[in-house]
């Protein structure tokens, strides 16, 4: 059974749990990467990502509409054309941000796909659209950091 069929059989609580689990997967991944990183600077960046994803998880757990209703900023597409780095123990901070932005992008696409699929169900459509927008906000924040630090054009 594919994800869309599974979701059509789920209640709203289970769908929310699935989304929270998505954040937990990211927390687990970045925690592992932090523990394996060789450089202090990489460890710091992975810890920042763990903190960011934990905050997202808490926000989902306490799902309050006012935190999700705002439309996302324009997609900067800064990392869209960059190569996806492989997770390894000697990643640079630049690679870590690209990796994280691409993960946010993929998750946003997944939610957008679900929103489009459930366009016949206003509740589900709106929920998944807000989730997609939330992931785009995270991507925007990472890409802004990337631009400020790695595209100084010196």
């Amino acid at each position, binding site marked *: 059974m594919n994800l869309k069929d599974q979701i059509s059989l789920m209640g709203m609580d289970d769908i929310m749990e699935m989304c929270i689990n998505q954040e937990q997967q990211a927390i687990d991944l970045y925690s592992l990467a932090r523990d394996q990183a060789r450089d202090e600077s990489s460890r710091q960046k992975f810890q*920042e990502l763990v903190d960011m994803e934990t905050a997202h998880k808490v926000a989902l757990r306490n799902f309050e509409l006012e935190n999700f209703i705002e439309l996302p900023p324009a997609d900067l597409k800064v990392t869209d054309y960059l190569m996806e780095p492989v997770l390894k123990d000697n990643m640079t901070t630049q690679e870590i941000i690209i990796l994280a932005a691409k993960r946010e992008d993929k998750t946003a696409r997944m939610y957008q796909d679900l929103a489009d699929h459930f366009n016949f169900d206003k509740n589900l459509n709106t929920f998944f659209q807000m989730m997609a927008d939330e992931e785009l906000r995270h991507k925007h924040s990472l890409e802004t950091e990337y631009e400020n*630090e790695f595209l100084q054009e010196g």
Partner: protein
Amino acid sequence: MKHERPQSFNTVPMKERLTIPRQAMPEQDATVRSTNFLEVNLGLTPEQAVIEAQRCIECKNPTCMEGCPVSIKIPDFIQLICNQDFIGAAQKIKEDNSLPAICGRVCPQETQCEEVCVMGRRFEPVAIGRLERFVADYAMQHGNGSLESFEKPASTGQKVAIVGSGPAGLAVASDLIKEGHEVTVFEALHEFGGVLVYGIPEFRLPKEILRQEVATLEAKGVKFVKNFIVGRTMTIQELMAEEGFDAVFLGLGAGLPRFMNIPGENLNGVYSANEFLTRSNLMRGYDFPEWDTPLYRAKHAIIVGGGNTAMDAVRTAKRLGADEATIVYRRSEEEMPARNEEIHHAKEEGVKFMNLVNPIEFISNEQGSVVAAKCLRMELGEPDDSGRRRPIPMEGSEFIMDVDMVVIAVGNGSNPLIAQTTPEIQTNKWGNIVADEDGRTSMEGVFAGGDIVSGGATVILAMGAGRKSAIAMNEYLKTKVRNSA
């Protein structure tokens, strides 16, 4: 900033000063200079310098000094030029800036002292940078190599190691040798000067100027050691514990080139700006085959970026004989961080500009050499944190252009060697050394300043950081003596 008004030597009536035109910098002809590596700007003549100095309206509250990161006493040295005391003017600058011939050439005065010059509110600002360069050059040509009257102080018996011979390191050396410390500068490369030597081309900053500055410091007693990589040849701990250095200054700069992370950046013919400029500047690639450093002569070289490094690289490519040399920049010319003068010179020399374009892939032939760049057109969106409008890719706008050389000039990061070999020194997530405003790091007796702390910045800011650290290091060394007595 309170500043006592200097004695006026300017005999030109105040109203007439407003009508004197800003003196133009004599330059090599563009078609001639685009085929040689000699300096583009030739420097003001003494007559021009005096006329330019006479444009100063001697403000009661001069703002120019506020624009200078090291607070050079600008009104004072300008008055000394009016009095034709060029050596005195150079000495006045040297009280605050140990490298005026360099800063006069590469400082972005238009965004510093000249930007806040009161004359600039209605007319063109006084050409402070050109005057600084003039007096520094004059003093070098007419002095004894040292601009200051230097009396060797009594030795404190304390040893200071300076890691890196760029602007921050040279500023620290200059200040601490005056205090009687035994100062040694360690340089990883085979020439001294750091980014000033490997990064800035001869046509903008002749190497001879640096050699003279280093020779002056040597004459004052500073020891210079080249081909010495701190972190490899010897660690900081070894320098302190085994070689007996009482304090260390880290001025390593930001020498780690950044790439874009797009496919094809590892192809033959794709260089970082650091590698390309180092081959030409430091290893004299432009003198091949007299010097043994080959550099490819391109049919079409593209340089990705819009900063001063990109301008240096594109003008170097042109001088090396590229049929076409093009700046590829993702924003418009208005947002370019390069100095206007550099953009203007590049255009005069035949450099092409392809703005609002960003490469997304480099394509190779069967031999693995770059033959084309796949690019996207960009459009400008809302302003970002820097106030410049953000470039946004235009979907479906991909195009391919033939290129046989690419230079990536999108910025530099810090070298990770010190962080890897000295865990006692705290770094931030970007790999920069964490230091307080006086340069103190998390390791006792170790100070740091310049680009290794701040990330890529200007020569004068690095020097300013070096001077602050020198004061703190001197205090630290004095306290150390007191505590051990």
